[in-house]
């Protein structure tokens, strides 16, 4: 069933979109990842303009993060104070990001920047995940275990503007979560991702937050930042397609439930290496589109009024 998307201005099969939402939702339920970093490339592959894919994906992540964030809120798994600092950085970062997005769009370089950002991030994350899961598989086979140090003193602990975060039992510089929030905000605007895959490792390894509050606080931040991206993209670029977001969401919600149920029954590390391979595959595909000689080196675009 073909459906005409009002903002993307193309006709796409509605079941393809539902299926895509379902697939990415299933993967995100299975692996406990956000899935934004897979959805936007998939949308670009089926012909949605990259600018629309990225902005609409931000809108969809708002929806995908709400129920998770509410659940963590009820279980008091959110460090509100830390969350607010992250959000402050995130709002600033995403505002700068959307401004940068508009500027690059006017230069005609936004598609290139989106593609390059994806190649870099998918490449790095895919490789790290693959190495990590491969190591985990090997470790389990050898039945050996190494202990991690309980506390490490890093350069980040020397930064000024120290703040006390009771929920996380931390006394650290506010610049650290502020900066992390800012960086993730820029990514959210340019790549249409929630940024959990960056924020969570930063919170655990760099900030040193207890793992219990990491996921909830990250979701808390993602909602505000992606909402800000949605608003600003709609305001400045008119690239948020509500119809596309809703179709992806419906598929995504069902897929995520199935993925969560399915994931409980399976062995984690082999699955993670599969996800890593998938991420690397998507990365390779995007890289190919950058380096392959285009069918026509010329392209048309409307002058933005």
């Amino acid at each position: 069933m073909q459906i005409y998307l009002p903002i993307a201005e193309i006709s796409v099969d509605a079941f393809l979109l539902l299926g895509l939402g379902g697939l990415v939702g299933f993967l995100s339920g299975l692996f406990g990842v956000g899935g934004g970093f897979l959805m936007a490339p998939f949308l670009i592959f089926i012909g949605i303009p990259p600018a629309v894919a990225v902005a609409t994906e931000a809108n969809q992540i708002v929806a995908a993060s709400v129920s998770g964030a509410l659940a963590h809120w009820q279980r008091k798994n959110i460090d509100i104070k830390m969350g607010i600092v992250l959000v402050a950085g995130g709002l600033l970062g995403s505002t700068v990001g959307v401004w940068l997005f508009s500027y690059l769009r006017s230069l005609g370089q936004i598609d290139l920047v989106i593609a390059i950002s994806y190649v870099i991030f998918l490449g790095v994350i895919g490789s790290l995940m693959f190495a990590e899961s491969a190591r985990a598989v090997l470790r389990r086979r050898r039945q050996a275990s190494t202990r991690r140090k309980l506390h490490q003193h890093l350069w980040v602990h020397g930064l000024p503007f120290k703040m006390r975060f009771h929920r996380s039992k931390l006394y650290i510089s506010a610049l650290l979560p502020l900066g992390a929030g800012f960086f993730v905000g820029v990514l959210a605007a340019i790549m249409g991702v929630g940024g959990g895959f960056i924020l969570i490792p930063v919170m655990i390894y760099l900030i040193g937050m207890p793992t219990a509050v990491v996921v909830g606080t990250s979701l808390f931040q993602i909602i505000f930042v992606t909402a800000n991206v949605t608003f600003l993209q709609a305001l400045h670029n008119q690239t948020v397609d509500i119809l596309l977001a809703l179709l992806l969401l419906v598929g995504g919600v069902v897929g995520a439930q199935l993925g969560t149920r399915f994931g409980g029954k399976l062995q984690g590390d082999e699955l993670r290496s599969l996800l890593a391979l998938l991420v690397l595959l998507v990365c390779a595909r995007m890289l190919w589109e950058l380096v392959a000689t285009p069918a026509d080196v010329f392209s048309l675009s409307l002058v933005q009024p």
Partner: protein
Amino acid sequence: MNRARLPFLAALTLLWLGAFPVRAEPLVADLSDHLIEITTGFTGAEVLLFGATEGAGDIVVIVRGPAQNLIVRQKESVAGIWMNRNRMHFKDVPAYYTAASNRPIAEIVPHEMRVRNEIGAENLRLATTTESTKEAADLFRKALIRRKQTQQLYGMAPGEIAFMSNSLFQTRLYFPATVPVGIYTVKVLLVREKQVVSVQTTPLIVQKTGVEAAIFNFAHAHAAQYGIVAIFLALVAGWLAGVFFRRV
């Protein structure tokens, strides 16, 4: 003759005269539809153009979409990566253009007349507002036409017009799913011995309707409110999904 039938016949004659005025227009043409509506299920549209000529002659049809300002960009390989490098602006480019005729266009109208009347995409006067050499402008102009042709927005269809008798003709105009909205003009020329004898112009409107139009207009006219609605919808949808699946 039955007297009751007389007014009916008179009305019919009047209608006939109305369609073909007494001055005997050499050319009459119309479209099966003057409105193309882009709805949710839109996958392109076909409009039938039909008409009649007084006496012999050739028919040329030119369909022109609304004017656009376009940027044509050229990619170059930089360190192995293809990126946009050069660009050129073009003003008042028809968003859609197609020409059709009943036999090869070169047999109907001479070259200089095709240029003067912009018959055929290659004869469109596409003005660039970017300073450049003539060679570069030509290269980009050709590229613009080629891209439009790939998108099925520019076309040339000689021999597409079929004469059903000496005077009745018809053709089908095709508009793809990506057809831009706006007011189109359909110009029908009657050509006799390399001279345009008669011209008739008919408008055709392409517009978005229903939910699509409402969403598009809302997004552009009230961008801030649209953004807030988008966030609100996402929050409600996400919350509902969470509630629903916790129960299941």
